[in-house]
């Protein structure tokens, strides 16, 4: 098999072409340029370089076709991208954009052995039952680390009155996590802080059109991402 050594820049081209072919059935120079945010002439010169290495067949004015070698290389890069992205999303708890961006940078520099072992590590952390404590820890700890972004994650009890947010993560260690889930407190739901009880630690939130009251210490296990002012939200 053996991957053909090419520059990371070239790898990006192969990746994009493969994605476009999968998505639309063909890849035109214009689409590639749009996707990579480069000019059409630079695409053309890159395609020529790749075609001299037998990774694709390129004739002007017709769609780009990947050779078998090209396809294999592209698939390999995409697989890496996916695995890295998963690591950033699910272990480091980065948001989608950031995860994508970081994966794009890293996918070109790891060697095959490192990558294979890395995949095993991620799989183990995410699926093995003896890692559930670790997963809990990660889901609570990660969102807090270097959360400099003011619009980033915060725990539900920190949400100000009248503000809306999307639930990003519910820690597994939350007592009665299932009951909360049954009531709609699952990632992706829009939640609005309605206020606090006169004294004590109850707060009330609006979820899926109804008001629920829950304890602040339970709410601390629910991580949300605040919506901007004009954001709607489902129902």
């Amino acid at each position, binding site marked *: 098999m053996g991957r053909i050594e090419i520059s990371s820049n070239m790898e990006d081209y192969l990746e994009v072409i493969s994605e476009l072919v999968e998505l639309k059935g063909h890849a035109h120079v214009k689409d590639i340029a749009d996707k990579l945010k480069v000019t059409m002439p630079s695409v053309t010169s890159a395609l020529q370089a790749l075609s001299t290495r037998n990774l694709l067949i390129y004739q002007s004015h017709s769609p780009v076709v990947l050779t078998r070698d090209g396809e294999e290389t592209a698939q390999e890069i995409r697989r890496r991208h996916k695995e890295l992205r998963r690591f950033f999303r699910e272990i480091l708890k980065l948001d989608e954009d950031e995860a994508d961006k970081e994966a794009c940078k890293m996918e070109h520099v790891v060697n095959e052995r490192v990558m294979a072992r890395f995949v095993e590590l991620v799989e183990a952390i995410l699926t093995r039952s003896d890692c559930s404590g670790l997963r809990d820890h990660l889901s609570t700890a990660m969102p807090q680390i270097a959360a400099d972004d003011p619009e980033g994650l915060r725990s539900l009890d920190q949400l100000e009155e009248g503000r809306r947010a999307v639930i990003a993560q519910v820690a597994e260690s939350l007592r009665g*996590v*299932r009951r909360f889930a049954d009531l709609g407190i*699952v990632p992706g739901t829009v939640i609005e802080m309605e206020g606090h009880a*006169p004294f004590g630690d109850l707060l009330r939130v609006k979820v899926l059109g109804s008001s629920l009251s829950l*304890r602040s210490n339970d709410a601390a296990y629910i991580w949300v991402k605040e919506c901007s002012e004009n954001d709607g939200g489902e129902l």
Partner: protein
Amino acid sequence: MTPEKMQYWHASVHDESVENTSGECFRIALAGNPNCGKTTIFNILTGSRQHVGNYPGVTVERKIGRCTIGGMRIEVIDLPGIYSLSNSSPEEKVAFNELLHQKIDLVLNVIDAGNPQRNLYLTTQLAELNLPMLMVFNMIDDAKNRGIEFDFPMLERYFGAKIVTTVGSSGEGMDKLRGGIVEMLKSGSSDQRGVRLSYGESTDAAVDELTKMVERSGFEAAKRLPARYFAIKLLENDPELSAEPRLAEISEAAAVFRNRLAARHGVSHETFMADRRYGMISGACREAIKISNDKRRQVSDNIDKIATNRFLGVPIFMAVMFLVFTFTFTCAEPLTMAVEWFFNQLANGIGMVWPEQSLPFFRALILDGVIGGVGGVLIFLPNIIMLFLAIAFLEGTGYMARAAFVMDGFMHKIGLHGKSFIPMLLGFGCSVPAIMATRTIESTRDRLTTIMVIPLMSCGARLPIYTMLIPAFFPGKAQSLVLWSIYLIGVVLAMAGARLLKSTLFKGGDEVFVMELPPYRMPTLFSLMIHMWERSVMYLRKAGTLILGASIILFVLNTFPVLHNAPMDGRIAELEQMVNPSDEDVEQLKSLEAGRRAEALRYSLAGRIGSGLAVVLRPIGFDWKVSSALIGAFAGKELFVSQLSILYSVADDEPDVAKLQSHLRESYSPLQGFCIMLFCLISMPCVATVAVVRRETNSWLLTILQLAGLTVLAYGMTLIVYQGGRLLNIGTALL
């Protein structure tokens, strides 16, 4: 817990209503979220032909009603309001059991049309049961006002069930609903089957795989319900099902699938299925439900801005409670007095007709025992009617949840939550309706804890004891302070007791607090009446019989054996015969009669027990008279005063309080007086309370435990106070 578990999959719930299986009777189960208007629909369908009972072993109510639609006899079961069938609360367990083990011909899934996304979550689970189902989109007017539009044919296809729209409060759409029910019952269940909700490709594949495994295992419960249902439950990691030994292998396979799927979707494996379900619903909602203007439940939200306000919330709650209190105890007072008057008149009337000489024992039994006992039962009825009218109103409007929300901070400190506050407050009025009011508390442990401590809230019937004893022993300035301290001691003990119980007997870290605050609504008069009626009947039937029985026993204790004191009786008869008695003679007659009553009571079983008890009660400063009076107080706390009057030979025609007080001053020290009050406050509650506790806890063990616990506590407290006081020489002489 364990026996409950054992019967979970194997036996069926005991069912008192299946007795007449002669003739075809269809069974319909009403299922839906709390506050979806389910009970309103149930009431309209069945009217007053309802039976409210309890599920065995739990405090969840079981409501069954009957009706005839289109010539078909139908039994309607109103399942408790639930958000899901996850077995995470007693209500969910009960509802699930009912659906699993009973013959159900049709499930009516009531949905709050104004809030489809949440309500349809339960629908997804009900649809998996593959029972014939009819979806009832209730409160459709509200939904329309809020600009929600439904594509019903699409939703019908999606969930594989017909849809009817109704407005429960006005009865709109009920004919269509009845028509739908008839149609469904007639068509049988065959056309219904085969709808499979899709949870996404990878999840479906796992479900299919597990379904095959369940089918192969020959798990017998899977014959009644589709194997696919069990596969989903296993994938969800349902605690009961996963613990089933015959499914152990499949449950392991499910765990592998679950972990893999959860990781793939980036959610926790605990909530994985919930996430999938909501995902599916939001898909369905996007296609079939359109919201044109996002007008929320504005009015409701605005009311809440004030009602649960940080500063106004508590004062408003207090004002509402004051109204409830006034309504329950003040408005009911004329009725209570009327009941009392009626039974007095009845006893007098019969007494006139029935000559004293014929069958005297039997006469006394009827007049004092039975009529007195029935009166003792009915005397509470006005309070109960008023209280439950008020509670039904508070619950129906949605304020009850706000009250709990507002008061929670305070109650949480003693280990309970907000909903316990109202019953405890009502305890100051009367323990009987207060204990019945604990039905609004969902958590069983909290409810039992509240019931256990309610008698410590000093009830209205104890007030006569205080008002008699306090002026006897304490100077004017200290009187209100002493009264206040008695009430305060009760409250403090109740709070400490609740704390203690919650950390020992009813320890439960497993009950998660999450409560819905439903939008404010105006309840229909019909539902209020039904609720009130239901409670009153329940009280009469269950607690009433116990109270009556106990009253008669107490009567016997107080009356028998009858004392025959010939010289005294002769002298009394002689004085009564006198045509023109002088004042002196009347005086003598009165004191003789009083003396005879005191003698008779001393001679009676109660008197003898009292004398025996005095040995035990001496260390806390009580003599035989107080001890005997305490036995009488068991029938009703206020009777303590009249019993004591009899024993001190004070004529009871017009209880001469001052005279009794002077007697008491002569016999006891203020310390003893205080101890008597303390003991009356804490010790065993009255017989009506015991009966109602038995009824509400469904357990003699807990009832007796409470009785014994309170009495031991009273003894201990009084002992400390009395002996401590004597040692320190406090209150041993009149102030």
